[in-house]
């Protein structure tokens, strides 16, 4: 029963990791850009929510109404103002610029908020849980996060494959030059993609902040979890990313059960194992 509990917790955490990964995967799919500052944006969202809840007295989950549009706007401005200039064949400029952004965000947050650990208070929701079977209980919050992750991924899939919006993303990703010939403004499309990515990041950041302590330095680790989920699951497949997140979450949970100091290591080793044995991931999509 203990192990079942462990695995269930791992699965639920995996949902959060999948959400970290979804934004990353989206951006890479549309414009071949990997945002090294991705994890730091997750933390930025958490701090934004902190400011909103403290100044307006809102419940953290309600603060999403402000934080999500705000982060989306930041994403659009960032892409059009800065990141669009780094796109091209050379991978060094976007990598270096987003790396620089990562350093700037971390240290900016450090200056503004100090290195103290913070947490968002969600009240009763934090400790609420219910028993599904003997000895196996599920926290309401972790379940909420998992459901949110599934909903986000489902929504993104629907967006990409069933809407005109998604068509525009896929076309621009395929061939930016020809996309212009059907009237698509590449700079605008990329801006929207980044806005969408940071909107997802905002949700992930707030959910993270309610669940665990956060400080300016935890960004890179979130980036790595998202990245590992993408690689384990397989590139180009959002549902695969969900699976990848779950595998990672479960690996970490098992590792933690064996020895608390092994939690992160177990996750990394699972990732390296997949990389060694099945580098294209568990559910790769064959890209045209």
């Amino acid at each position, binding site marked *: 029963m203990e192990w079942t509990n462990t695995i269930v917790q791992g699965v639920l955490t995996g949902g959060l990791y999948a959400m970290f990964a979804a934004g990353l995967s989206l951006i890479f799919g549309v414009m071949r850009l990997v945002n090294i500052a991705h994890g730091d944006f997750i933390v930025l969202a958490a701090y934004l929510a902190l400011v909103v809840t403290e100044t307006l007295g809102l419940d953290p989950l309600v603060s999403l109404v402000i934080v999500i549009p705000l982060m989306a706007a930041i994403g659009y401005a960032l892409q059009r103002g800065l990141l669009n200039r780094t796109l091209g064949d050379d991978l060094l400029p976007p990598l270096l610029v987003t790396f620089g952004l990562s350093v700037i965000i971390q240290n900016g947050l450090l200056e503004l908020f100090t290195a103290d650990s913070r947490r968002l208070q969600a009240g009763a929701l934090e400790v609420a849980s219910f028993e599904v079977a003997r000895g196996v209980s599920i926290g309401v919050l972790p379940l909420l996060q998992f459901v949110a992750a599934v909903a986000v991924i489902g929504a993104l899939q629907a967006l990409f494959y069933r809407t005109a919006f998604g068509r525009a993303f896929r076309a621009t990703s395929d061939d930016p030059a*020809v996309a212009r010939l059907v009237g698509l403004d590449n700079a605008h499309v990329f801006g929207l993609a980044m806005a969408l990515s940071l909107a997802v990041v905002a949700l992930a950041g707030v959910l993270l902040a309610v669940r665990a302590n956060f400080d300016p330095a935890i960004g890179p680790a979130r980036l790595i979890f998202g990245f590992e989920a993408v690689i384990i699951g397989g590139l180009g497949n959002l549902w695969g990313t969900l699976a990848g997140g779950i595998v990672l979450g479960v690996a970490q949970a098992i590792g933690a059960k064996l020895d608390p100091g092994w939690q992160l290591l177990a996750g990394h080793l699972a990732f390296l194992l997949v990389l060694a044995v099945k580098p294209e991931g568990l559910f790769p999509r064959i890209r045209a």
Partner: protein
Amino acid sequence: MPDPAGDALLDVRALDARYGDFQALFDVSISVGRREVVAIIGANGAGKSTLLKCVAGLMPARRDAIVFDGAPIGDLPAHRIVARGIALVPEGRRLFPSLSVEENLLIGGQLGRPGFWTLARIYELFPALAVRARLPSTALSGGEQQMAALGRALMANPTLLLCDEISLGLAPIVIRDIYARLPAIVAQGTSLVIVEQDIAQALAAAARVYCLQEGRVAFAGAARDATREAVAAAYFGT
């Protein structure tokens, strides 16, 4: 032998174009009237595709070098030029591989410009596409891809359609099939500019023809005046 400037739909005036240090077009002037079919022929590297790219906004040009429907558009970016009513069928088809056939057509119309061409009407023009609507665009034959590329451009309801080497790599019977549909397109009010290596087909379809040679206009005249000797002289610069 250009049309009087005031009447033309498209007026290209003294256009220069460069790729870095290499100049591809020198002082090129052409014009296209309303509901007219104009052919542009020339050897490889003569500058035909470059000319189309400039008109379509994919390459930079002087603002007043390209005048469309009375307005100078030379410096507009490509996505705005589509909104004005010029659509390009690019060389090599270049359908979007991640999209199905139908999605390729739909995205052609994503600007929502009003006009005769709808998805249903494109399927009437090219029935083969209707059958394969849900397939990935990569599953089509060369001829079908060309039809899809044409359809995608038509979905933008252009007043001027630019066709870059639509016969490239296709069997003669397929080429004839596609060219047979062009009159239906012109009949709906769209002018055509056809860039071709297949001279016979181009001259049969067009009213007027320009021949480019090493970036300059070497011949301009009615298609019926383009005798074999005149074309050869212009083509090869003898």
